[in-house]
């Protein structure tokens, strides 16, 4: 019956999930198709010379003309996490708080299902949505071989998992905040602000001296800060991302159990 909760929310979000995936696929295909035009551009690499904070702000560090650098600056360091976070934070805030505000949650909670199982169903929905988007991007990266975007498949898998975990972390934080406050807009606002702060810290840490010690507090740092497309897996990072997800899930469960449902 937990699976029915997942099916219910997936069905009701099918249009947005599909359009997110279609939009992201089109963007990614354009990016990989453009790569041959930029792969020999020395001008591009000048952007990151001298540790420019502006370039770092857009996630551009290191060599940009390599396949990994190109995909990193155009997707994995910024755009892909941003889109996945839009999806997971949006869903996380609406799954409990939003549906409660809309008067839809009462009929679900009186089903013979514990709140823990309802939450498990909704968490699964979030993971499936993020996974669809994440795998769509990974498939486009694979297609990129046609355009000389040749990447180590293991590194792509690592980056895919890291971005997925990042999205789940923030989605679960939004879910927990929504279940705690009962307010969708509060959950979206606080989680988005937190995500923006994490992004800034992680992006600027390599080039701004005083920000550097703060990087450990940024989930972006643990997910994409070490450029998994270039450097591969860093097990400690996954452990941190997983631990945050578990902690947020526990917090969401505790808050949901206490929440008064309309």
């Amino acid at each position, binding site marked *: 019956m937990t699976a*029915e909760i997942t099916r219910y929310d997936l*069905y*009701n979000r099918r249009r947005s999930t599909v359009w997110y995936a279609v939009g992201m696929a089109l963007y990614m295909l354009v990016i990989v198709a453009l790569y041959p035009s930029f792969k020999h551009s020395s001008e591009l690499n000048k952007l990151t010379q001298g540790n420019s904070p502006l370039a770092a702000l857009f996630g551009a560090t290191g060599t940009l003309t390599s396949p990994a650098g190109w995909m990193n600056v155009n997707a994995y360091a910024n755009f892909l996490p941003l889109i996945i976070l839009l999806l997971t934070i949006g869903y996380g805030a609406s799954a409990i708080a939003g549906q409660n505000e809309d008067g839809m949650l009462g*009929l679900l909670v*009186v089903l013979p299902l*514990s709140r823990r199982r309802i939450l498990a169903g909704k968490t699964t929905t979030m993971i499936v949505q993020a996974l669809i988007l994440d795998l769509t991007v990974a498939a486009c990266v694979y297609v990129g071989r046609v355009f000389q975007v040749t990447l180590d498949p293991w590194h792509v898998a690592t980056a895919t998992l890291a971005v997925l975990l990042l999205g789940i972390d923030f989605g679960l934080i939004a879910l927990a905040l929504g279940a705690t406050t009962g307010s969708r807009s509060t959950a979206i606002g606080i989680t988005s602000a937190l995500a923006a702060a994490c992004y800034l810290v992680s992006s600027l840490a390599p080039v701004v001296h005083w920000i550097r010690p703060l990087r450990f507090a940024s989930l972006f740092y643990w997910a994409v800060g070490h450029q998994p497309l270039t450097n591969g897996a860093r097990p400690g990072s996954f452990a941190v991302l997983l631990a945050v997800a578990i902690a947020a899930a526990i917090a969401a469960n505790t808050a949901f159990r206490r929440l008064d*449902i*309309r």
Partner: protein
Amino acid sequence: MTPAIETHGLTKSFGATLAVDRLDLRVEPGQVFGFLGPNGAGKTTTIRLLLALHHPTAGSARVFGLDSSRDSVAIHARCGYLPGEFELPRRMTGLRVLDWFARARGHVDQRWRDELVERFDVIVDRQIHELSKGNRQKLGIVLAFMHHPELLVLDEPTSGLDPLMQNEFQRLLRETIAEGRTVFLSSHELDEVQRVADRVAIIRAGRLVVTDTVDRLRQRAPQTIELRFATPVAPSVFESLGGVQRVTADGDRITLQTTGQLAQLLRVIADHDPVDVVARHADLDELFLSYYRQAGPGDDR
């Protein structure tokens, strides 16, 4: 016999607002229990406490002898619920909604569900956002009844229904009771409740005012007596009598309501040369309104 519903000192507050105040209720199985009160009296909050949608600030609620908070899953398996206000996914058709809830419950008699759809003329092939309030309400009724629950908790169930459907709904309630199941019916409409309820409770400002059978409440209801005298009589003559209330005068006519013994009143009337006396049957509406009137304007609870 284990009561279908039992609450002891059930209390719920939202910050400084006390929505339900030390409520003691007992609903026996196999009856329609009418739960009446003006808007904002605490009816919906009580229902949400019974179904563990809300958590009590103090006191306890038991359904079929099970603790409403601790055993909520077991209770939900035996309950059907129609909220006073509810929304369903806008882009789902009625049929898909019914199918989904049937799968999520895991046990629904398909033939019974289809019979309910037919009886209430539920539109199932359109998306929810295309349905009127009444048609959504009918869908809600099917959702509440389709799994043959032992206890039905219904919050303003006929809201938005036309008279034909209200009759069909009352017929469904009678069938439900005939099968030995229990209905907890919350409403602010006396007519709706007194037609079907065996027992009634009135809640006002979060507190239980009265609970009794409809027949006994009827006996307790005030009698209205209209009097005409040969010459005008001062209302104060009657106002001091025990049980007499709401005395109004209009020339040689006096109208009063009484819940007390009639002997003394009749003696006083006789002393003032009456030319006409009309006593109306006990007015249940007036009784309920008198309970309602004592309530100040409340917040929604």
